[in-house]
């Protein structure tokens, strides 16, 4: 016998093949554990990514929670486990855009990212090296923030270690578009880096 374990708000009709309540509870516990492991692995990358889209760190934390609750529901419904990393970033991307839109509407202005120039700098660096490092960092981040949004997203997802096909899936664009975007962005970063 199959028991539909999809949450009430799920629109999918897939079911979770369990026959008894203790087994259902056991399966839920395993999925909870799996979701928490994913959370520890991807919380910071997700947070960095959504903050790069102009969401505050506080809202970013809330988005990260929502993303992994959604992942739990996704897994409960027995849906595809292929490319979960891309799935996580896709949900995060959509929630971040929604949050940013709400912020813009509420404040009547464009929300700025919370990227801080404060950073942990290697204590071994001498003042000159530190200055060069900070200037280079500032230049690179300035170039990134001037890129079209799609290019910024591709670049940031690549920096989080996503492969081209994962980026394409997360942003719902073609593989070729990812390649062209990254090439264009890197060319701009390089010219700024040489300056």
């Amino acid at each position, binding site marked *: *016998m199959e*028991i*539909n*374990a999809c*949450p*009430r708000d799920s629109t999918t009709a897939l079911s979770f093949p369990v026959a008894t*309540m203790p087994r*259902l*509870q056991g399966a*839920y516990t395993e999925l*909870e554990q799996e*979701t*928490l492991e994913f*959370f*520890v692995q991807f*919380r*910071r990358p997700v*947070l*960095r990514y959504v*903050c*790069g889209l102009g969401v505050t*760190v506080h809202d*970013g*934390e809330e988005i*990260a*929670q929502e993303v*992994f*609750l959604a992942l*739990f*529901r996704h897994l*409960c419904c027995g849906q595809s486990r292929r490319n979960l990393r891309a799935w996580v970033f896709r949900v995060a991307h959509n929630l971040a855009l929604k949050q940013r839109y709400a912020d813009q509407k509420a404040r009547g202005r464009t929300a700025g990212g*919370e*990227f*801080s120039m*404060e*950073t*942990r700098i290697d204590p071994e660096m001498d003042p000159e090296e530190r200055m060069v490092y900070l200037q*280079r*960092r500032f230049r*690179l*981040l300035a170039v*990134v923030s001037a890129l079209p949004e799609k290019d910024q997203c591709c*670049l*940031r997802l*690549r*920096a989080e270690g996503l*492969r*081209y096909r994962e980026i394409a899936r997360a942003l719902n664009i073609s593989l070729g578009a990812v*390649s*062209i975007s*990254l*090439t264009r962005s*890197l*060319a701009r*970063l*390089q010219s700024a*880096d*040489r300056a």
Partner: protein
Amino acid sequence: MKHEPLHLSDEDLLLEAYGELSRRRSGQARAHLAECWSCRARMAELESTIAHFVRAHEASLDGQAPPDDGPRAMLAARLREARESDYATTPHPLFGGMSVQFAFGCLAIVFLLAGVGIWKIHGSVAARQDEATIAAINWNAVPDRNLTPGATRRLAASDVCASAPPQDWTVPATVRKRVLQEYGMAGAQARSYELDYLITPELGGANDVRNLWPEPYSATPWNAHVKDALEDRLHAMVCAGQMDLPSAQRDIATNWIAAYKKYFHTDKPIAGAST
């Protein structure tokens, strides 16, 4: 006549750097790079830029995001909540396909009717319910660390000792409900417990679900009144410079009963203890 080999495009270099080329094309690109100094120099430049961007990107949250422990505990509580609500609404074969929630609702009505019958006979149902509730609450004289690890605001000792006007630390109804649900005490009577801050706001405790738990008023020597005395004692010690604020927060969050014994030098609560 020997032709100069064509150079790799920026896109090819990038695909090679990211390991995105097919095995055949990657072999060709590597063979070309082995021969062509110009492309190798471009590749090195590209990799240097990528490395710097990745470092800058990874440093973008430095000092802004808290460690994983708190958010992980929060997610664990939310997952538990989601599981319980889904579990309650899942159709169960034993109840002929009715949801567990609906079936238990029916059972509750049956028990209620039976309870009213017993009450008419003995007149003591309410007292028994209170005893049962208090018995359940006694479990929580020290909070469950997984549910209530404690949470603080970023304050210095001078902030908590400043003579600011008293603030309203009333717990919102939604938060109260959530804490009681997490502790499986949704039906407990409000007069039996105090929804207490593990780390009191006077010591920098946060108004956060991770810092709240239902603490019994009575039926145990280690009750809410005793903890209030400890809170006053720790606050006085911090403000007198006898201990630092993080130590006070840590001691009360780890095990407030052990902290009471330590700072009051006693194994039993002192009647009418104060600072």
